[in-house]
């Protein structure tokens, strides 16, 4: 059994300021955007201006003559070939024998002209340099002719030049003839004309109706049993991640054929692995560095198109290449949270019991992807308490950029569709929506033997959270039946619940952390994990400092380099629950190593030694040494320890108190709605969050508040708007793609529901899930009229008021 978290905690759970806060605030912190290498070139990507088109012809000759031009690549799948024969300007190739044997050998003959690039071992070579059986990559520019482009922003080619401006000039000099094809950019248009096909994939049209309905119980009987039934259509738009630091990187090859990238990524290890695979470089010769990172929210895993393009341009140009997307590219092409629109019918009894729930919904993930909600989790949170349900979901493909995971994928959509319906039902029943929520909370599972586990106590946890939220929000005094009487500006209060995992990362390889103690007393922690802005650097320092009796500022944390051992991508709120335990075990192992190496020199037995703040104590001989004094006895040696953690380890017996998962949360929103203008002002929000063992209370609270802020933007401001006719997004900017500023933000009261016995749980995602649903319900409470679609803009409020909430 692992030693686990210290029972007496000096630092864990206290408020520790972000260690890199000053560096970030003053600009000393170097983000990928800030990296400039000697002789570095700037890359830029040519994109489809059309939502759906085919490339008829391409001519790059003028582009290659523009000032400062250095290299050009086509965005095509790479292909390795073996040289059969190089003769004159003819190159005969055959495919590299497949390991799967079954693939047939392919042959290709290429006439080597200006538009053909041959690469061997990541270096451009001439035809004359080739000999039979050389393994090469061959890019024929004209291969892009005929390529179908599926959204405005789809990548075609990339160039590198000596300046950003020259790179753009070169792009603009590429002559392309397009054949414009029909497009559909709005999901409702797909429903009107489901057989029309404008997107890739095997479907006969743009609408996937193959997802199986999910049913439980007897839906008809459930509605018959209901004392009130309401039906409504609710929806959320596709929104952009809007990472403040856009996607991108600097790529540089070294003389030994190794590749280093400074990449804005939430997965240093898999980004490096992706590049190693693509370019045939041994994994340890690819290094991905992410010392600082300006947000990812699920959209920054792997090298991505610009990552491969930058490395490809760099190998051809023989110089480092930087590609950072601009804001328009970031919004149109770097992922989005998919939309969802659903017709929900819900029935219930006066005591609040939901007797039946039916949802029929659809959404668009863009031109490729899959489901846009988690159908199996509907009705959201209350799923396990509702006996009768029917759920169906269709996916409407559109000629827009593809969705990517975004902070709790599927959950915010689920939450809005469910919680709007729940409040509408409460109104129909004439009861406080708090009653309906309490009544339908998922039950505790008495069969679960581990009494600290979520399933054994989730009903109690939610009820306690509701008690706290009710108290902190003043719900009892502030809630009123929907439709505040009198006044132009109406007050409303609303609520919504959420759930999430937050376990350690799965996968076969555990997350690693390494701790080194030097003879001068310095403790250094090394891990390849990345700090997305979540304060992982500070978290690591706190854990190591706690174990070694130091202060967080004493610990040097080196993170965000892929060669510091394995770490998983920061997805699913897994980083802290994977990395904090790894740091814990690394620090404990380093401490044991230190004791083992120094104790003999001090005539002590390692098992008698303990660490207290700033010192090492020999409990048997009643002796003590200052930390530095003790470490000095390492002499020429150093102490070190490695820690590992994973979901599998957390699932082993007695390990659930190291890290675990499954959380609930309750949020309330208070708003003021100007009924003449439709403008909604957020005034006070309460976020109660179950979070296991808190490592850094300050940054954990900040994480929750940040989730609420993101949710307020989802609720009130954000939307990707596509023009039906041009097929283009009209607001790929921060002008009409609206994000609230400081004056739009309310007072946010965060309450962390400490449960240290459950170990560390990740809470990056959950606190953003229920905010928008709570806002929608607060607006409903103010007006007595449902504004069914997000964002709740003046236009939508006025429309809803004008038609009295009828849809």
């Amino acid at each position: 059994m692992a030693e686990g978290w210290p029972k007496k905690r000096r630092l864990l759970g206290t408020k520790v300021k972000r260690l890199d806060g000053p560096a970030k605030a003053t600009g000393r912190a170097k983000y990928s955007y800030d990296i400039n290498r000697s002789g570095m070139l700037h890359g830029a990507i040519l994109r489809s201006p059309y939502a759906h088109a085919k490339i008829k012809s391409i001519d790059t000759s003028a582009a290659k003559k523009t000032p400062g031009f250095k290299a050009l690549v086509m965005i095509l799948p790479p292909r390795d070939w073996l040289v059969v024969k190089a003769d004159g300007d003819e190159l005969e190739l055959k495919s590299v024998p497949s390991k799967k044997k079954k693939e047939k050998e392919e042959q290709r003959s290429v006439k080597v002209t200006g538009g053909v690039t041959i690469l061997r071992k990541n270096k451009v070579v001439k035809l004359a340099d080739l000999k039979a059986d050389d393994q090469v990559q061959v890019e024929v520019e004209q291969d892009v002719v005929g390529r179908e482009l599926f959204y405005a922003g789809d990548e075609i080619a990339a160039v590198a030049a000596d300046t950003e401006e020259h790179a753009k000039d070169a792009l603009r000099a590429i002559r392309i003839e397009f054949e414009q094809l029909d497009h559909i950019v709005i999901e409702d248009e797909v429903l009107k004309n489901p057989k029309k096909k404008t997107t890739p994939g095997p479907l006969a049209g743009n609408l996937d109706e193959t997802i199986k309905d999910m049913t439980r119980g007897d839906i008809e009987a459930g509605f018959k049993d209901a004392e009130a039934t309401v039906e409504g259509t609710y929806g959320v738009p596709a929104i952009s991640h809007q990472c403040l630091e856009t996607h991108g990187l600097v790529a540089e090859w070294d003389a030994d054929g190794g590749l280093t990238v400074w990449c804005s990524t939430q997965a240093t290890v898999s980004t490096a692995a992706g590049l190693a695979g693509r370019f045939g470089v041994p994994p340890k010769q690819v290094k991905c560095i992410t010392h600082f990172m300006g947000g990812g929210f699920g959209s920054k895993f792997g090298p991505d198109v610009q990552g491969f393009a930058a490395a490809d341009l760099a190998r051809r140009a023989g110089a480092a290449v930087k590609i950072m997307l601009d804001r328009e590219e970031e919004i149109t092409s770097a992922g989005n949270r998919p939309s969802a629109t659903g017709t929900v019918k819900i029935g219930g009894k006066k005591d609040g019991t939901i007797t039946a729930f039916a949802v029929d919904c659809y959404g668009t993930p863009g031109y490729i992807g899959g489901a846009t909600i988690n159908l199996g989790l509907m009705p959201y949170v209350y799923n396990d308490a509702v006996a009768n349900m029917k759920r169906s979901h269709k996916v409407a493909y559109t000629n827009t950029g593809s969705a990517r995971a975004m902070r709790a994928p599927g959950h915010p959509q689920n939450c809005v569709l469910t919680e709007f319906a729940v409040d509408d039902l409460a109104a129909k029943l004439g009861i406080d929506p708090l009653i309906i929520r309490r009544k339908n909370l998922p039950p505790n599972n008495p069969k679960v033997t581990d009494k600290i586990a979520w399933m054994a106590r989730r009903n109690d946890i939610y009820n306690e959270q509701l008690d706290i939220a009710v108290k902190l929000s003043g719900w009892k005094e502030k809630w009123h039946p929907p439709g505040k009487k009198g006044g132009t500006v109406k007050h409303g209060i609303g609520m919504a619940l959420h759930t999430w995992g937050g376990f350690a990362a799965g996968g076969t390889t555990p997350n690693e952390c390494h701790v080194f103690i030097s003879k001068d007393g310095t403790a250094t922690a090394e891990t390849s994990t990345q700090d997305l802005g979540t304060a992982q650097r500070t978290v690591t320092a706190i854990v190591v400092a706690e174990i070694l009796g130091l202060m967080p500022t004493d610990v040097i944390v080196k993170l965000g380099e892929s060669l510091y051992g394995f770490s998983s991508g920061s997805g699913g709120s897994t980083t802290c629950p994977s990395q904090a335990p790894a740091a814990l075990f690394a620090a404990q192992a380093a401490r044991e190593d230190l004791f083992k190496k120094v104790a003999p020199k001090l005539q002590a037995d390692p098992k008698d030694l303990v660490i207290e703040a700033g010192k090492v104590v020999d409990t048997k001989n009643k002796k003590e040494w200052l930390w530095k004094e003790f470490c000095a006895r390492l002499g020429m040696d150093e102490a070190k320890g490695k820690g590992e953690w994973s979901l599998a380890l957390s699932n082993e017996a007695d390990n659930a108190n190291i890290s675990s998962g499954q959380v609930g949360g309750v949020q309330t929103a208070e708003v003021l709605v100007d009924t003449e203008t439709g403008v909604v002002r957020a005034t006070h929000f309460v976020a109660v969050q179950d979070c296991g063992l808190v490592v850094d209370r300050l940054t954990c609270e900040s994480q929750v508040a940040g989730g609420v802020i993101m949710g307020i933007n989802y609720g009130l401001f954000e939307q990707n708007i596509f023009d039906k006719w041009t097929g283009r997004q009209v607001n790929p900017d921060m002008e009409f793609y609206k994000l609230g500023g400081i004056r739009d933000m309310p007072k946010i009261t965060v309450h962390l529901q400490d449960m240290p016995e459950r170990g560390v749980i990740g809470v990056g995602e959950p606190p953003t899930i229920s905010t928008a649903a709570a806002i929608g319900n607060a607006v409903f409470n103010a007006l007595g009229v449902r504004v069914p679609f997000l964002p709740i803009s003046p236009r939508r409020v006025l429309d809803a008021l004008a038609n009295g909430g009828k849809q």
Partner: protein
Amino acid sequence: MKNFTYHQPTTIAATLPLLDAEWGKTELLAGGTDLLDRQKEYVSQPEKVVSLTGINGPFREISSMPGAAGGPPEVTIGAGVKLISLAESSLLGAYPALASAAAQIAGPQIRNMGTLGGSLCQRNRCWFFRDEHVKCLLKGGRKCYAQDGENEFHAIFTQGHACVIVNPSTLAPPLIALSAIAEIMGPKGKREVAVEKMYQAPVKDTQREHTLAPNEVLVAVRIAPKVPAGGALHNASYEVKQRQTCEWPLIQASVAFHTERGGKVAKGVRVVLGHVAPTPLLSESAARALEGKEVTEAVASAAGEAACEGAKPLSGNAYKVQLLKVAVKRAALLAAGAKPYWEG
């Protein structure tokens, strides 16, 4: 952006010969908050940029003289005056319609760079116009894409307008309400024009949102509303914004009028509507609804209704008619000194 030559003359006189007689190849640079974006996005691709940032003196100053018959001061504002100065200047105390509008423009960064002249002469914010890949009327195309495309922020007074942009200036409405005069220098010397006459509805790439010739420079704006002896000037602006930070108004209304000594009724009323049409709109019907009356909530509401007369919204912006109604009502009440009923 496309390469260009850069000039930074130090006087207006030296500026004028640098300008062309036609639009397109030369652009004036004031604060740069609009032009630089357009250049970076290839919406404007001038060969020559003539910066006004080297010009000092009255061009960058606000000056005030006592008004006639003890009325509000006559204020002359150089076109190079920064928005932040308009928002904070003590010389504009009599003109809250202007000062409050300046204070609400965008955020501090923009207000510290942007100028009065830039605000009055900037290009529109239509998302089709701002998209390099959409060739709309104002870029030499044959179609206004907002007419039947996404148009929730476009004009609601659309009669006869081939292009349905809204004029983006938030300072033009209060200045027009205050009967301000624009001072313009050109090859033939100085001319003066009422600010409301400075605007037009453009329909092609050889036109701008304003009526200045390509070789003219707006040098100053003069405010000297006529108020009878012993009377008092009342003025205010009201904007509806979705966000409270860094946001364009969805709708703006500016109202100015005077009362006579001891009187309560509004006289010489001017009501200007912003962000509703390709130009700022001086609403005679709204003014008539206030003229000669004490501005009560009912009278202000009637003015709001009157302001909407003739509105013809597009497919996606009918909501702006309601906003206009409210903005005029609230601006009138603010001008009359009423307590804002819409604040808690």
